[in-house]
C-alpha cells in the first residue's frame, strides 16, 4: 500500500506525466471549439444527425467544459501541480534554492490558487440574468436591497452603429436611495458583494388584439416573441419593437429618445406567413378580421447579476503567475 502511494506520488511528480496532461488538456479544449457548445438539440441534429448527436451528448461533448471527463483532466493536472509545487517547496526549505526555483514554485502554486479561486467562486457565488423595466425595482438576490432603473439610454451614430449603452441605477434600502450610478458595458455597479453588469436592453410591450367576436386580448410582447390570439390560435410574430423609428437608407434605425414605440408584425400559421407591417403605439391597425393595437411599451435594461467571492483569489493567482513566470524566464541564473 505504501509502495502504491509512493508510486502514485512519483507519477504525479513526473514531468512526462505533466506534459502528457498539458497535451491532453490542449487537445480536449480544442475539441470543444470544433463542436459547438451548449446549443439547442436541433442544431446538433442538423450538424451531425441523430446518432452522432446522441453519442456526443452522452459523452458530454456538447457541454464539454462542464463534463466529468474534463473535470477529471483538470483535477489530474491540479494533483500534478500540487506534487510539483510541494516537491519544489521541500527543496527550497532545505535551503537548496536559487531565485529561479522560487519563480518555478510560485508559477506552479499560482495555477493551484487560480483553481481554488474558481472552485470557491463556483460554490459560494452565483450568476444570473434579470430585467428591470424603467421606473421599476428589482429585489437583489438575498433581499437586503433593491435596484431601480431610473433611465436607460442607447446611443447610435448616424449609420446606426452602437456607441454606448447606459443604465441609470439607484440602490434602494427600505425605500431610501443609498447609491446612484450610471453603469455602462465596462463599468458595472458593485454593492454589498453583488455586481450588476450592463448586458442587454429592449422594450416590453402590450399588444391588444380584438377578434371578430369582439373579444379583446392583452398580450405581453417583446422583440422576437410570438403573440397568440387564443380565441382563434392566430399567431403574430414580433419582428421588431422600437421605442421610436426613423428610416435611413431604407433601413430601420432605433432612436433611443422614446416618444412613440413602433412594432413590426408578421402574422403566421402553420403553413404561411404574411407581413402585417409597422404598428405605431396607440394607433389601431386592421388586419383581416383582427384589430391590432400596440397599447403600451416600456424600456427595460438587461443586467447580468453576480456574486463571485473567488475573483480576488483568482487575481492573487494571476499576480503570482506573472511574478513567478517573470522570475523564471527573465532573471538570469
Amino acid at each position, binding site marked *: 500500500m505504501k509502495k502504491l502511494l509512493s508510486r502514485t506520488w512519483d507519477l504525479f511528480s513526473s*514531468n*512526462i506525466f*505533466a*506534459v502528457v496532461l*498539458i*497535451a491532453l*488538456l*490542449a487537445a480536449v*479544449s*480544442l475539441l*470543444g*471549439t470544433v463542436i459547438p*457548445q451548449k446549443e439547442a438539440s436541433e442544431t446538433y441534429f442538423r450538424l451531425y444527425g441523430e446518432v452522432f448527436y446522441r453519442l456526443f451528448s452522452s459523452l458530454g461533448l456538447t457541454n464539454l*467544459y462542464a463534463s466529468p471527463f474534463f473535470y477529471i483532466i483538470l483535477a489530474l493536472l491540479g494533483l500534478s501541480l500540487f506534487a510539483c509545487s510541494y516537491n519544489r517547496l521541500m527543496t527550497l526549505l532545505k535551503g537548496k534554492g536559487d531565485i529561479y526555483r522560487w519563480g518555478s514554485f510560485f508559477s506552479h502554486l499560482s495555477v493551484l490558487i487560480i483553481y481554488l479561486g*474558481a472552485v470557491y467562486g463556483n460554490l459560494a457565488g452565483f*450568476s444570473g440574468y434579470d430585467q428591470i423595466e424603467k421606473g421599476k425595482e428589482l429585489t437583489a438576490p438575498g433581499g437586503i436591497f433593491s435596484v431601480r432603473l431610473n433611465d436607460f439610454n442607447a446611443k447610435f*451614430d448616424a449609420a446606426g*452603429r*452602437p*456607441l*454606448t*449603452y447606459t443604465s441609470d441605477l439607484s440602490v434602494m434600502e427600505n425605500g431610501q436611495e443609498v447609491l446612484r450610478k450610471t453603469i*455602462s*458595458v*465596462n*463599468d*458595472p455597479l458593485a454593492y454589498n458583494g453583488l*455586481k450588476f*453588469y*450592463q*448586458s442587454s436592453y429592449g422594450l416590453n410591450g402590450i399588444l391588444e388584439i380584438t377578434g371578430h367576436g369582439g373579444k379583446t386580448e392583452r398580450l405581453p410582447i417583446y422583440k422576437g416573441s410570438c403573440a397568440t390570439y387564443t380565441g382563434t390560435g392566430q399567431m403574430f410574430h414580433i419582428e421588431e419593437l422600437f421605442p421610436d423609428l426613423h428610416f435611413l437608407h431604407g433601413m430601420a434605425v432605433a432612436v433611443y429618445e422614446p416618444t412613440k414605440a413602433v412594432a413590426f408584425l408578421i402574422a403566421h400559421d402553420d403553413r404561411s406567413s404574411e407581413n402585417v407591417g409597422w404598428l405605431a403605439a396607440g394607433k389601431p391597425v386592421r388586419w383581416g378580421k383582427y384589430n391590432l393595437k400596440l397599447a403600451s411599451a416600456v424600456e427595460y435594461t438587461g443586467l*447580468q447579476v*453576480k456574486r463571485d467571492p473567488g*475573483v480576488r483569489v*483568482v*487575481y492573487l493567482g*494571476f499576480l503570482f*503567475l*506573472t511574478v513567478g*513566470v*517573470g522570475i523564471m*524566464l*527573465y532573471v538570469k541564473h
Partner: protein
Amino acid sequence: MLNIESNFLIFTVGFYGLAMVAGFLSIAFKKSLIDRAATWLLAGGLVLHTVSLGARIAASGRLPFANLYESMTSFAWGIALIILVVNYIYNVKAAAAAVTPIAFLAALYATTLNKAIEPLMPALQSNWLLAHVGVAIVAYGIFAFSFGTAVLYLVKAKYDAKWLPAREKLDELTYKLIAFAFPFMILVIITGAVWAEQAWGTYWSWDPKETWSLITTLIYLGYLHARLVMGWKGKVAAWFAVVGFLAVIFTYLGVSFLLSGLHSYAQ
C-alpha cells in the same frame, strides 16, 4: 486623412516587399551590402507604416484596434518593429529575412480590408484595450520570429545548408524568443480575463478565442517544459515552435473567421 493613411500603407507594403526580396538575396549571395539594404528597407517601411498608423489614430481619435483592418495593420507594424529589434540584438539576418514575409503579407492583407472608420463598440471601450492588444502584439510578434528561426532550423537540419546560421544558434535563439514572449502571452490571457470580468462579469467563459489562446499557451508551455525540464532540443523543439505559431495564427484569425464568439470581427 484617409489618403495619407492608405497611400502610406501602400508604400509600406512596397518597402516591406523590397526588404523581403533583399533579405532573400542576402541569404543567397552573402553580400553585406544587400544585408544592410534589407534592414534599411524594413526600417524605411516601418517609418512609413508609423505615419499611416498615426494618420489613422488622428482621424479616428482613438487606438487603431476597432476592426480587422486596424488590428491587422497594427500587428504588421509590431512584427516589423520586432524583426528590427531582434535582428539588432542577435544579428540574425537570415532569420529576419525568413520572418519579413509575415510582416509583408499582414500589411498587404490590411490594404485589402475595409478601412471605414467605425466607432469602438461598447464592449471595447475600456482602458484594458491598450494593455490587452499591446501585450498581444509583443507576444505574437516574437512568436512569429521564433517561427522563422524554427523553420530555418528544420531547413538547416534537412539540407545542411551552408548559407544558414549554425543549428545550435537557431535552436538557442528559438528558445530565447519563446522564453521572452511567453510571459507576454500569459499577460494577454490575464488582461483579457480581468477585462472580461469587468465587461461581462466573468473572467473565463470558454469562448473559442479564450480557449484557443489557452491552447496556444499550453503548446508553448509544453515546449518550455520539454526543454527546461527534460532537455529536449533540436527537431522536436523546432516542430513545437512551428505548431505553436500556427496556433497563434488560428487564435488571431481562424477563430474570428471560422468560429463564433465574443471576439468575432465579422458582425
